[in-house]
């Protein structure tokens, strides 16, 4: 087994992604299921510390470095790639499988990157491959959403890159070590990381893009990008205070928008922001306990969120409907999907004996241990909110409430198997928490199943459950579209320009058309000067070229004369 430990863990997935289009149906299935398992084996064979060193320019690169934290994330990413492929086998397009494997490979590359440059490379690959996953739904909406997704993430990539260059010129080293937000370069790196985590003010990329992916595509997407960001924050900025507030904002942002939302997969997308908020908050608290909690929560979250999305994906795949108002009563014909959806819903609400219970309570406990009373209260209140939007709302409106008359059967075998696997994992981790605790980055003394924890959690859940059904008339989903920060760049921008032109043109009423033509939009202005017929792009008369020569020479001469 010494040979296998020398393979960079991300490599097989990328090679597989390249090979996939050349293979037949059966080989494709074997490859996309076998490779994640192979990677899982490699992850546990790679020795601790740096195992591959390169030099780039005058810097040392460590493309493969392993420790407990990277192994933890690597493990869950590999498991996720396996289950995601299993779920996707019967329905995903080839390009989606290719992109998904590359996506998993980039995420695994990130968690084993020992230096910032390798990190940046995989970071960009992650952005490109997840855009490709969104696009492979091949609809107009997914094309536009993917483009917006790409723009936001390239922006994040540029911020990260500028930060990394600044970091190198400050410290002279490219190694990825813990930093603090204390210099412009580090702020930029933090900003780049946070954009991928779905932090404000650009959180909107996540619920905007993910639900436009195919049913299986969103299962993949939910796992990698945000959790890779959680990993780099854990490694790069442990204990940065600002993360506590950002995390809390994300927690409540997710709850509020999810409660207002009607599209079942958008509900779950908002809930990703909410759950990542818990993790970011834990990183900000910065104690061993809270860091363990964030890492553990990322692990369990990937599994139960994928499970929830598989069950929502199955519903979408079988019915073609995505809005809560169109669905309901599906438990009668989709019993397995219903049960798995409920297991996922209970896990996300941290119901005792599910995986969510053993991880999220660590973060709250860490806040309590640090005597951060307000944060503890907010996190606890948020737990109730999670139960409302994801724990009850999703299964209730999709599988129960009124009967929509739809009677689709459970989805095909591979999709059922994937759901059963993850439902099993959710419960297994809830029953045997030490399995997960043993691989966390720091030693764990926390005992989840004390009487007080269990009673407290059950009280919280039962009362918020009660509240849900009492308030049900108010929560009835109507056909709504919720506005978010992205309204600023998708609506306000164009609208503001319109408004300004109107106001201005009222002053020059007689020149309105003239005015609109000239100012119109930013694009119009750019096009005016830079477009094929713009002054900057069209062919000049030779005389005007020479004029510029004279002007420039004149400037030089006059400047030097004085």
């Amino acid at each position, binding site marked *: 087994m010494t040979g296998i430990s020398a393979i960079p863990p991300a490599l097989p997935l990328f090679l597989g992604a390249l090979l996939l289009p050349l293979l037949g149906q059966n080989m494709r299935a074997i490859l996309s299921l076998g490779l994640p398992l192979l990677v899982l084996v490699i992850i546990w064979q790679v020795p601790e510390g740096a195992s591959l060193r390169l030099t*780039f320019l005058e810097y040392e690169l460590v493309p493969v470095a392993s420790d407990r934290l990277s192994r933890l994330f690597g493990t869950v990413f590999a498991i996720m790639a396996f289950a995601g492929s299993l779920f996707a086998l019967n329905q995903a397009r080839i390009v989606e499988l290719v992109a998904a494997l590359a996506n998993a490979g980039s995420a695994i590359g990130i968690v084993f990157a020992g230096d910032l*440059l390798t990190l940046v490379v995989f970071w960009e690959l992650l952005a490109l491959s997840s855009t490709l996953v969104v696009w492979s739904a091949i609809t107009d909406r997914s094309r536009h959403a993917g483009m917006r997704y790409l723009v936001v993430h*390239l922006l994040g990539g540029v911020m990260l*890159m*500028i930060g990394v260059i600044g970091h190198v010129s400050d410290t002279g080293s490219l190694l990825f070590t813990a930093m603090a937000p204390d210099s412009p370069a580090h702020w930029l790196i933090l900003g780049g990381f946070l954009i991928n985590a779905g932090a404000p003010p650009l959180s909107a990329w996540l619920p905007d893009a993910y639900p436009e992916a195919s049913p299986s595509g969103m299962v993949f997407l939910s796992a990698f990008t945000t959790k890779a960001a959680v990993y780099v924050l854990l490694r790069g900025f442990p204990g940065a205070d600002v993360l506590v507030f950002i995390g809390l904002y994300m927690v409540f942002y997710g709850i509020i928008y999810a409660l207002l939302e009607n599209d079942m997969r958008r509900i779950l997308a908002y809930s990703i922001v909410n759950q990542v908020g818990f993790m970011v908050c834990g990183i900000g608290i910065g104690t061993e306990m809270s860091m363990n909690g964030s890492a553990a929560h990322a692990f369990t979250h990937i599994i139960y969120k994928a499970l929830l999305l598989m069950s929502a994906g199955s519903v979408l795949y079988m019915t073609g409907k995505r809005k809560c108002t169109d669905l309901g009563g599906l438990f009668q014909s989709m019993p397995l999907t219903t049960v798995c959806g409920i297991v996922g819903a209970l896990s996300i609400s941290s119901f005792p004996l599910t995986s969510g219970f053993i991880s999220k309570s660590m973060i709250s406990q860490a806040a309590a241990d640090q005597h951060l009373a307000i944060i503890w209260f907010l996190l606890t209140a948020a737990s109730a909110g999670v139960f409302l939007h994801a724990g009850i709302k999703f299964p209730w409106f999709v599988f129960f409430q009124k009967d929509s008359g739809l009677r689709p059967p459970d989805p095909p075998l591979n999709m059922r198997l994937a759901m059963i696997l993850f439902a099993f994992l959710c419960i297994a981790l809830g029953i045997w928490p030490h399995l997960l605790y043993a691989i966390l980055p720091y030693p764990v003394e926390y005992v989840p199943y004390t009487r007080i924890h269990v009673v407290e959690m059950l009280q919280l859940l039962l009362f918020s459950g009660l509240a849900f059904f009492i308030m049900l008339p108010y929560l009835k989903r109507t056909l709504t579209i919720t506005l978010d920060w992205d309204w600023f760049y998708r609506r306000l921008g164009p609208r503001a320009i319109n408004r300004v032109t109107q106001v201005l043109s009222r002053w020059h009423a007689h020149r309105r058309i003239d005015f609109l033509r000239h100012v119109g939009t930013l694009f119009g202005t750019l096009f005016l000067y830079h477009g094929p017929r713009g002054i900057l792009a069209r062919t000049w008369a*030779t005389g005007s070229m020479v004029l510029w020569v004279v002007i420039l020479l004149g400037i030089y001469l006059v400047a*030097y004369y004085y």
Partner: protein
Amino acid sequence: MLISDLPVLQVVIPLAAAPVCLLLRNPRHAWACALIASWLVLAIALMLVQRVHAVGTLSYAIGAWVAPWGIEYRIDMAGALMVLVVAIIGALVMPFARRSIEHEILEKCTGLFYTCYLLCLCGLLGMVVTGDAFNLFVFLEISSLSSYVLISLGSRRRALTAAYQYLIMGTIGATFILIGVGLLYMMTGTLNMVDLSQRLPEVANTRTIMAAFAFVTVGVSIKLALFPLHQWLPNAYTDAPSVVSAFIAATATKVGVYVLLRFFFTVFGMQFSFDAMHVGEILMLLAVAGILIASLVAVFQDNVKRMLAYSSVAQIGYIILGISMASAAGVSAGMIHLFNHAMIKGALFLAIGCIFLRLGSAELRDMHGLARHMPWTMAAFVAGGLSLIGIPLTSGFISKWYLASAALSGGYWPLVVLILASSLIGLIYMWRVVEVAYFHVPGTMMHKVREAPAVMLIPTWLLIGINLYVGMDASLITDITRQGAEILIGEALQ
């Protein structure tokens, strides 16, 4: 004996081969002659680089007339790098040229084409190796006159206008350089660059020298197409035959940059150029404007060759930006980008040459679904595009990295943002081509289109290979540019 004659052989071989090409009536024979000459030049360039690396700066007295009386050829590390750039591009476009030229140029002009190509090669190499300011002007004229002819051979009649405008602008540029050199000669009585640099400080504070500096700067700026004096370039690159676009885009403007370096650092000296004349600030301003404006213009172009031409103006901006920082790191970053951009643009224009051969057009609207019919060509184009944008593992990334680091160490934070943000604009204009070629449904005419012949694909991919190699292991090129920059700056400090 032969080893010590390398600097002059470099120039003499293409010069001697040029008339032979004209005399050989058969296009095949002319092509073979040019091919052999350009490959010999590459072999000599490689030997030169190795020799400069081993023994340091080479000096060669023409006709054994010792400098400063005779003409001196002088090659240091920066010069060796330039010779290498020109020779690599020259050697790689020649195998490509035969099919492309058969398709784009009338048969009776073919001999003329190869003659002019060799003259242009000779002129460009001469500008690099010469250590004599007037000799520089002579080689500049040789390369310019031959490139006017090369551009005018383009298949569309618009090529004539483009060549004419380039002729006017190029002549003004050359005249300005000549005026500048004349003024310098008037004040110092010497034309040898090293000699000039020693005599100039005594008379540096005269208006004559300042005027000379202004004339040389503006003159060279025209030749290297610095914004806003770039107006001749887009038409010239668009309407020239594909081979000529690739050759000139990759070499001519780069040699212009090298001449600028020579004048600023070797002749006038860094202290005079940057501290007294403040040319750094002016160049930085023009470079920034050029990067932004030309990149934006490129986004809106519908002809891919024209788009690449504007992108060239922006990329020249990056090179000048590095130089304008007037630090060893900045100059070295500029030279790295100079090398990388020559390879990138060479590859991209060759890829467009392949497309032109099969489509007869470089318009975006004719390229719908092209990737299915010319997968290798389009893959090369995408690889070159990625490098142009500066994706890690490509040479473009190395350039951006060094430029950004140099900007940071000089304390220019906004420039770092500009360098990286403008690469996003590059992404937009490359993406437009990718979208059309990969995602659009092929038109009805498309089914006749086949992949380009191997003899054209191999040179294209060799250049892409250099890009990727530099992206993965840049030590060789950064070593050379660091030495080159140190010599340039060191000369200035003495």
